[in-house]
């Protein structure tokens, strides 16, 4: 019980810290750090998505960049068409571009969810290393598709000139944009908590530990895992849509397998299966990138060494280190 309370306190601290950074930056007029905080919130959101599959469902997906990228492309392509005043497709149904934020989010959720249902339906037939590799391979397939299709500039990507319109809020204001990302992040964490605490979450936890036992009590593991996989992909897809809006740019690099690895790193650094872990992981990653990157352009070398050290010697991630072991497995 003591450890539970310590983790709750820690979580509250993490959430408040992430909120405080852009406020301080705004107060002292260092607007660059507002953007950095938005990046952390968005990447953490992608991590929260992966955590649902990886941490709570035990599905080690090495292809979540696919969903991040698809979400990004869904939002990017629609707002590109809206800017050009052209239609996304005219047959069999007429779909115009859109500059409404809610439409873009909906498109991102829909596309990443549908594709995740297809990828998951095939991939979940496999387990273990096969699952890791098949998710990686599917993500590569989508990456190469984005590179070789000339319609949206292939490898060069698409610039987006305007942020979308959310009723009542001005997203072109960086601080407002951060608050929106932050609110979605907390909403996603809240949803994760509710999902994991529900009957469905209990079944998912059981599927992670022992599928045979789950079958024995009359619940088929496959649909449970597939549902969790799709939900996980949708959260990550939404993060992709926000990321594209933050950068004003969409290109196949957000589909690359390096990004899949990085999203995984956010989850592991923070602590697998910890609700607030991805925030810590993403924040640490960005801080390391910024701090070491300020000293040397070889920052990836040092990042690699630090990551290696964490994996080899600090199991359980940062939250595990600070709040103690919470799970009994």
């Amino acid at each position: 019980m003591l450890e539970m309370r310590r983790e709750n306190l820690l979580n509250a601290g993490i959430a408040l810290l992430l909120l405080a950074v852009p406020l301080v930056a705004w107060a002292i007029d260092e607007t660059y750090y507002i953007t950095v905080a938005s990046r952390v919130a968005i990447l953490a959101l992608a991590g929260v998505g992966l955590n649902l599959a990886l941490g709570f469902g035990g599905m080690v997906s090495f292809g979540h960049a696919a969903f991040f990228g698809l979400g990004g492309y869904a939002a990017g392509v629609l707002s590109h068409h809206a800017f050009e005043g052209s239609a996304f497709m005219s047959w069999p149904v007429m779909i115009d571009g859109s500059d409404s934020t809610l439409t873009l989010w909906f498109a991102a959720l829909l596309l990443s969810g549908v594709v995740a249902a297809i990828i998951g339906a095939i991939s979940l037939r496999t387990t273990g290393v096969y699952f890791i590799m098949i998710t990686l391979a599917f993500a590569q397939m989508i990456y190469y598709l984005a590179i070789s299709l000339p319609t949206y500039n292939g490898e060069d990507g698409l610039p987006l000139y305007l942020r979308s319109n959310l009723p009542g809020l001005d997203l072109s204001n960086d601080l407002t944009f951060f608050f929106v990302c932050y609110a979605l992040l907390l909403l996603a964490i809240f949803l994760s908590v509710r999902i994991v605490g529900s009957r469905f979450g209990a079944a998912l936890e059981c599927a992670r530990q022992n599928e045979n036992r789950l079958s024995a009590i009359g619940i088929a593991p496959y649909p449970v895992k597939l549902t969790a996989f799709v939900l996980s992909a949708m959260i990550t897809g939404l993060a992709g849509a926000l990321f594209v809006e933050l950068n004003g740019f969409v290109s196949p690099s957000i589909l690359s397998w390096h990004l899949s690895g990085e999203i995984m790193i956010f989850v592991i650094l923070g602590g697998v299966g910890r609700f607030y872990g991805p925030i810590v992981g993403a924040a640490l990653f960005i801080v390391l990138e910024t701090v070491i990157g300020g000293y040397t352009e070889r920052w990836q070398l040092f990042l690699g060494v630090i990551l290696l050290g964490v994996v080899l010697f600090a199991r359980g991630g940062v939250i595990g280190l600070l709040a103690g072991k919470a799970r009994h497995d």
Partner: protein
Amino acid sequence: MSAAFIFEQLLNSLQLGVMLFVMAAGLTLVFGVMGLINLAHGSLYMVGAFFCAWVAGETGSFWIGLGAGLVAAAAAGAIIEMLVMRRLYDRDHLDQVLATFSLILIFNEGTRWVFGAQPLYLDIPDALATSVPLPGGGGYPLYRLMIIGFGVLTAVGLYLLISRTRLGMQIRAGESDREMIGALGVDINTLYTLVFAIGAMLAGLAGALVGALQSVEVGMGEPVLILAFVVIVIGGIGSIKGALIGAILVGLVDTLGRAFLHQLFALALPPAEANGYGAALASMSIYLLMAIVLAWRPKGLFPVNA
């Protein structure tokens, strides 16, 4: 479309196939014996290519360079096995993925540090820089034929090593029960280092040979690594026979897809669109192949039973 063109494309797919086999054999060997999934295998491929190009450039001899590439890759493999991999054998796949992903970052930046950001170029040795006439007209580069030869030699060599030698016997025993061969007095640590170094050397061989066909640059191992993963997933992870069949299949589907798909599309579409869609589908074709194989046999074509 002439018969010579088709024949040439078949040889190209064979060349890609055997290269993928050399790459995938090391990967699947390490997984089979140690249960380790090694993302840094592509980095060893890069190390082989860089040392080959560097030494060949200094000495003027491709063959000395090739030797240096093999030694460097094997040495790099042995070092990372002793420093890092050894600690990962008992961990779950997630830790293995992350640790070896970190190694990729380290290798990429380290190589850029040592050799600079500019790509190196490796020339095909003069004696091999000619073409062999093909039946039906046209010619095929001798160097590419030599790569096919190297690949076949590797396959035969691995087969003999594993089925006929004492080391091979230990490897096979290690695949089925590691504790038991330890109990029987085999020094497991040395065996593991040796197996890992062999796998690394194979990756270095593939890198050095392919290095002469393309530029030698940082990150060159990553696309090949992912192809090698597709190969061993199709073949059945841990199975060397599966790696061979998978590699040939992937080589065929990828090369023929790139050569002929856009022509197939051109029958129904205007040329520009046919090229675009053809290229897009060709780049996806091997992943589709993998999805079909796995949907049909979730543990690959030649599953290794634990």
